[in-house]
């Protein structure tokens, strides 16, 4: 026997849910159910209503979400479609993943249209201000395509809780009194104010922000179809803006070039000229290195990352090259390896403020990979090109000891490849300088096993202690 289910209104989701649940439990197949609305009953269906009965019935959250969107669609078939989906879900629990299914794809399209309709309401509602009795009130007239006015109104309560506003529409109207959102009967366009003084200013903006040289009417039409135009104060300009676009653009092109303006805008305040630096200071060297183009690494990088520390440091640490963080901050040893290095210095009781830290290569070498940059080892040419800076830093500081952190630093300091394993922990003489070779702290970060990591860290700290001892002896 056909069951005629009468819902209380276009957006009666609870009524649909209760009925659908009972029908399902009672085993009534979709073909035996007719759905209609309170004010327009389906005259051809015999009325037998919602069956009695109880039983356990579960349905996924995903279906409920889908159904609560679909129910707002204007298609009268939506109630039956949803019941058919519900019915089928019992035998085909994965049905909603099957976007190629006719019912699923139809429901998904309807839900999408509903969400779009709500989104367009958030976009295209235009409030008009009424001043009355010392109180501001904002009223809009809006015609949604689906039954979305209630669903769309909550947004305005979150956005404008301290304004009095109403959104009138043919089926239902929404009102916010500063504390509560209420709905009452539909209204007519004549019930809303017919203008707002600010609309002229808004139209001025609309016309000025449009670029006539880029006319793309179809792109506008697909996002702002003509059906919305009658409630948008700016839309009255569209036809003339489009009609004149070509003429305006041709005029810009034909206009050619007038003589450039002579009375230029006020000259910019010049930054005070840099105080000339005493020849041969580290600061001077640093500013010279800022514009270094000795190898191509400068171009993709952000900046030269020069050494940092006191000009009379006893000890100079030389790393490989700045990393991602160093490149952004413009300072050496501030990334993860730098933090580990700081910890090791403290454990070896070396005073960071008395040390100078720098790199063999002063630009970050990398390949971009999506949102990150992959570190790349500098090659011999790049190390050689950058050597002059390191050499001059050392010549100015005249440290008692230099520590080469890793192979690149050692290669730059010794002028040839130096196996770290063989030379580690030894103090070697290079010309007048004394150099201690050890690993780069980033190596410690790459050791996978926790045990070995601790071991390697301890060895590194030992090397730093040796550096401290060597300094003491030199003093």
């Amino acid at each position, binding site marked *: 026997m056909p069951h005629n289910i009468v819902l209380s209104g276009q957006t009666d989701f609870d009524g649909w849910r209760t009925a659908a649940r009972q029908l399902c439990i009672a085993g009534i197949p979709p073909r035996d159910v007719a759905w209609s609305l309170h004010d327009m009953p389906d005259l051809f269906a015999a009325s037998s209503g919602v069956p009695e009965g109880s039983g356990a019935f579960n349905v996924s959250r995903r279906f409920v979400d889908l159904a609560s969107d679909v129910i707002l669609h204007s298609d009268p078939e939506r109630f039956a479609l949803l019941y058919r989906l519900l019915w089928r879900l019992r035998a085909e629990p994965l049905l909603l993943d099957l976007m*190629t299914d006719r019912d699923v794809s139809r429901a998904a399209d309807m839900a999408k249209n509903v969400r779009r309709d709500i989104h367009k309401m958030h976009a295209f509602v235009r*409030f008009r201000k009424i001043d009355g009795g010392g109180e501001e009130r904002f009223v809009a007239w809006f015609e949604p395509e689906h039954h979305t006015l209630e669903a769309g109104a909550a947004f305005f309560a979150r956005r404008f809780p301290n304004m009095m506003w109403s959104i009138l529409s043919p089926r239902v109207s929404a009102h916010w009194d500063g504390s509560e959102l209420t709905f009452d009967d539909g209204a007519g366009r004549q019930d809303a104010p017919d203008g707002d003084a600010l609309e002229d200013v808004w139209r001025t903006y609309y016309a*000025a922000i449009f670029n006539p*040289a*880029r006319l793309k009417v179809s792109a*506008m039409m697909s*996002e702002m179809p003509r059906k919305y135009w009658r409630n948008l104060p700016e839309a009255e300009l569209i036809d003339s803006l489009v009609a004149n676009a070509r003429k305006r653009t041709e005029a810009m092109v034909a206009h050619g070039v*007038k003589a450039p303006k002579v009375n230029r805008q006020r000259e910019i305040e010049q930054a005070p000229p840099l105080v000339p630096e005493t020849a041969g200071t580290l600061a001077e060297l640093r500013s010279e290195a800022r514009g270094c183009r000795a190898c191509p690494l400068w171009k993709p990088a952000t900046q030269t990352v020069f050494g940092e520390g006191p000009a009379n440091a006893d000890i100079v640490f030389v790393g490989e090259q700045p990393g991602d963080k160093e490149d952004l901050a413009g300072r050496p040893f501030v990334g993860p390896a730098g933090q580990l290095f700081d910890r090791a210095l403290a454990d070896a009781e070396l005073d960071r403020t008395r040390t100078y830290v720098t790199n063999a290569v002063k630009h970050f070498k990398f390949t971009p990979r999506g949102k990150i940059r992959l570190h790349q080892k500098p090659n011999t040419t790049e190390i050689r090109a950058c050597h002059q800076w390191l050499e001059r830093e050392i010549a100015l500081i005249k440290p008692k000891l230099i520590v080469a952190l890793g192979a690149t630093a050692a290669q730059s300091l010794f002028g040839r490849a130096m196996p770290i394993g063989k030379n580690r922990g030894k103090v070697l003489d290079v010309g007048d300088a004394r150099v201690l070779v050890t690993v780069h702290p980033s190596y410690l970060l790459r050791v996978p096993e926790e045990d070995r990591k601790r071991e390697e860290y301890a060895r590194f700290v030992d090397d730093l202690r040796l550096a401290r001892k060597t300094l003491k002896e030199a003093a």
Partner: protein
Amino acid sequence: MEIGAKLAILADAAKYDASCASSGTDQRDSRGKAGLGSTEGMGICHSYAPDGRCISLLKVLLTNACAYDCLYCVNRASSNVPRARFTIAEIVTLTLDFYKRNYIEGLFLSSGIIRSPDYTMEQIVEVARQLRLQHGFRGYIHLKTIPDADERLMAEAGKYADRLSINIELPSETSVQKFAPEKDVRAIRRSMGRMRLKIEEAGADRKAPRFAPGGQSTQMIIGADAATDADILTTSANLYGSYGLKRVYYSAFSPIPDASSVLPAFAPPLVREHRLYQGDWLLRFYGFDTEEVFAGTDGMLPLDMDPKLAWALRNRDRFPLDVNTAAREELLRVPGFGLKTVERILSARSIRAMRADDLKRLHVPLKTALPFIVTPDHRPTQLADRNDLATLVKQAPSVQLSLFPNAA
């Protein structure tokens, strides 16, 4: 000058900035609080201009007076355009008045450089400060950052703004030197670097000061210099990787009132701009790298088909792919398959085998996709050796309205 006249000048001066995004910032609303405004994740376009661009924000300059003389810019010092300047109070009021009527999501404020970079930046920041602190405005704010502005001003800008941006202007450093001699790409990159560090710090540590939760973006002008598409997308890949940009906007150079004689007027290359966005998407979402997109080409993306289709036609040996067994990364390379399509195929095919007919319901352009795929009911013929394949699979050319029939 009355407000409407100022607005006409200062919106006209701002329209060459393509960005009008209002998405991607933190979610907030005004329930139970003084003030007004909300951001709920998704951006909202409150209107569209006949140029097809979204109008989401009140996009204006504080002033179009500018000390710089960038040749491509309508506001350059030597241009004869009329000048105007808003007071801070005027912009604040206009933003609030537009917002209350639901015309906009918020404000995008930029400015010509007046007096000094720090002075200019201070004025911009002051507008945002008043909106946030005096009016409890919780709508979207996008501020243009002045390169190398003082650290304190930068921190304050990030505190009030949802998004910050600095334009890289042109794809190559040499072009910037030539067309915008007062601009320093190195200073721009340093500022982007500083911003990335601050954005990440704020994102990682809840106790760190708020800093531009909607991230940073930039813009490149296309077609004003001789850079190839490969040059452009290589620069983009570098910028995305280095500074974690949310977007690189491409803006086809278009005729401006009172143009400089150095840049002859021509129709803006809108199709090229569109192809660059498609190429940008391939790099960011489809697992392509710049080398493969341009391998075997002259460094330009074809104008008559999308770059993925062009790549597939050059790499026919990798096709056809079986829709029912190919991996996600492979499916993403099939012409006509978008990100959503691929996700839907993956979940549907785990339930039952996909047929060519099913693809129709996923809104796949079959003409483009079919030569590259195999399904139980479809097997493409002679893919590898057909010379006319390109013409068979191309979508009907989208007709670009030509404003200058005689120009190239």
